[in-house]
């Protein structure tokens, strides 16, 4: 054991001396690994960024909220099968809430109606088109993750009375009020004035997926008053315990069927949507991006590994006589194997460290250039890429090191 330790130390010293003696060669070889590690690390970061982005966008929906809609979000059949369905009415919310309070041990907490359509929002000369405009009640704040950075959400009185007040998303505020404070300013939707009472906390957009940043919310009666002609309604229901989602869904299905007066023999003519439905559709996409990305960048690391293998073979060849001498002095096969494995591993480690440093600064650069893309190097990624570097060194160094360890001392000593 002790001897193994001494041999190990010795091998690291030799590896360092070798790199020092062949700086150019070592650097060029390490370059392959550097490029490989940069590529893999950046890809890993990007993949985890995409994943974080998806999850963040999903968080808008909430993992403890069920959506009662006319159609499922992810359609398996053609849309005309759903078109003829009865619309969802906002009044359902009250009925459902009554049923929730009437039942003991309900798995549901609160139902909130939401009407929505895309509208243009205007302030003086500034206009934002296609803003997701919601009409809802003051209960909305209780079921969503939204928060106000300035001002507040509308209260129950404003909600019931249908006051002309509005809560706007961060990006909407940014576009309409580049330099002013939006609070108490009046914005126009379809020519109707609404007083801004709150601005949502910035959430960040990702690949154009949902974000509070580009939404606005007004009290439901006001929405109905001005925009009822064209709108979609849904009921959002928060569940008590998200681990009991299936039970909650069953309960809610029963309520909605009752509200819609569906006889038992008829199939559901509505859809219960949840975040999970999106996730299960997006996850395969996410995963195939990850696999393809890592495979392609992995190839560059593979090329780097071939470079390491090549240079280790060269090193073994030109130091054949040294190997012979070491064997004559008592180096065993394991000693020689270890020596060359450590040489290739040391090269890969150096390459990996340099690569990681590059990747780190590149991530900083990307993060600065694209603030909405959630990119960051994680500790796990650092550890992983170091492990990958070491493994690359061990794997690519193995064949040459094995050759070296098997050299016949007589032949090796005679080698010139």
């Amino acid at each position, binding site marked *: 054991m*002790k*001897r193994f330790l*001494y*041999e190990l130390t*010795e091998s690291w010293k030799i590896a360092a*001396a070798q790199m020092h*003696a062949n700086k150019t060669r070592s650097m060029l070889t390490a370059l392959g690994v550097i490029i490989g590690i940069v590529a893999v690390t950046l890809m890993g970061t990007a993949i985890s960024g995409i994943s974080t982005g998806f999850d963040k966008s999903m968080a808008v929906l909430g993992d403890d909220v069920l959506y009662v809609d006319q159609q499922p979000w992810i359609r398996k059949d053609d849309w005309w099968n759903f078109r003829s369905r009865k619309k969802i009415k906002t009044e359902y919310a009250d009925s459902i809430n009554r049923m929730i309070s009437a039942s003991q041990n309900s798995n549901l907490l609160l139902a909130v109606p939401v009407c929505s359509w895309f509208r243009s929002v205007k302030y003086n000369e500034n206009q934002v088109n296609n803003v997701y405009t919601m009409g809802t009640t003051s209960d909305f704040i209780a079921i969503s993750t939204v928060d106000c950075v300035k001002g507040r959400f509308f209260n129950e009185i404003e909600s019931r009375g249908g006051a002309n007040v509005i809560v706007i998303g961060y990006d909407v505020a940014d576009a309409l009020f580049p330099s002013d404070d939006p609070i108490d300013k009046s914005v126009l939707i379809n020519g109707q004035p609404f007083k801004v009472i709150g601005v949502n906390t910035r959430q960040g957009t990702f690949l154009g997926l949902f974000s509070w940043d580009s939404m606005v919310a007004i009290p439901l009666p006001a929405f109905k008053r001005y925009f009822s002609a064209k709108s979609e309604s849904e009921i959002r229901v928060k569940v008590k315990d998200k681990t009991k989602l299936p039970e909650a869904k069953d309960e809610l299905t029963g309520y909605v069927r009752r509200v819609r007066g569906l006889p038992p023999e008829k199939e559901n003519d509505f859809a219960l949507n949840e975040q999970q439905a999106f996730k299960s559709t997006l996850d395969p996409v996410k995963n195939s991006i990850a696999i393809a990305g890592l495979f392609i960048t992995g190839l560059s690391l593979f090329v780097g590994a071939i470079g390491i293998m090549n240079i280790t073979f060269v090193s073994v060849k030109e130091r054949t*006589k*040294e190997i*012979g*001498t*070491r*064997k*004559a*002095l*008592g*180096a*065993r*096969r*394991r*000693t020689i194997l270890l020596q060359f494995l450590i040489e290739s591993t040391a090269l890969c480690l150096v390459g990996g460290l340099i690569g990681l440093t590059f990747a780190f600064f590149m991530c900083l650069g990307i993060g600065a250039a694209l603030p909405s893309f959630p990119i960051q190097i994680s500790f796990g990624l650092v550890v992983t890429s170091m492990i990958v570097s070491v493994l690359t060194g061990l794997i690519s160094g193995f064949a040459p090191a094995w050759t070296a360890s098997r050299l*016949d*001392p*007589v032949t090796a*000593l005679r080698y010139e």
Partner: protein
Amino acid sequence: MLNTDTMRPRGPLVIDIENITKHYVMGEETVHALRGVTLQIHRNEYLAIMGPSGSGKSTLMNMLGCLDTPSSGRYEFAGRDVSAMDDDELAAIRNREIGFVFQTFNLLPRSTSLRNVELPLIYAGVDPATREERAAQTLRDVGLGDRLYHKPNELSGGQRQRVAIARALVNNPSIILADEPTGNLDSKTGEEIMSLLENLYQGGNTIILVTHEADIAHHARRTVFLRDGLVESDALSEATEIQTLAFT
């Protein structure tokens, strides 16, 4: 003339070779490098192995040095059967029992004298402090106390060979195997190396010298002459012979 060292009784048997052969297959041909060599070497002998090229002396040296195993025959090193050992066992024997001195010195070019001499101790598992102390002491013993931190390219040929000899000595081996130790040196430096080996012999070491030069072989007390893979003659040098006869 009575010389004290020749009067010493023979030491215990170190190398006991009986009828060993070695053949190599080279393409279609089989080369018989050794055709049956029997040889016994005792502790504190000074022996020269001579022979023209192709006589099998390199092959015999590889056998003696446990770098290679015989095709047939028996080889016992200090009572242990070498012919049946695997690579790693042979490496252990070489490390502890044999000190090699090569014609081309075979020093590690980028390491200091000290580091070169430490090498066998590393493979023996000696701790760093002891290692350095023993390596430095051995270098001082061969007269290189002021060259501990020099690299081979900063040393003369003679000094390099001294480093190599120190490296051979550092693990207190049973035999020192010197293969043409003066082959790459001028005659004056060669003589210095030979007198160093003589001192080592006087100090109790066993020395096996492989050479094709009669002048060099002359330093040894016993000369084994090989020809065509067989021992042609195995004789004590004159003075030694007389003394040994007198004692038997």
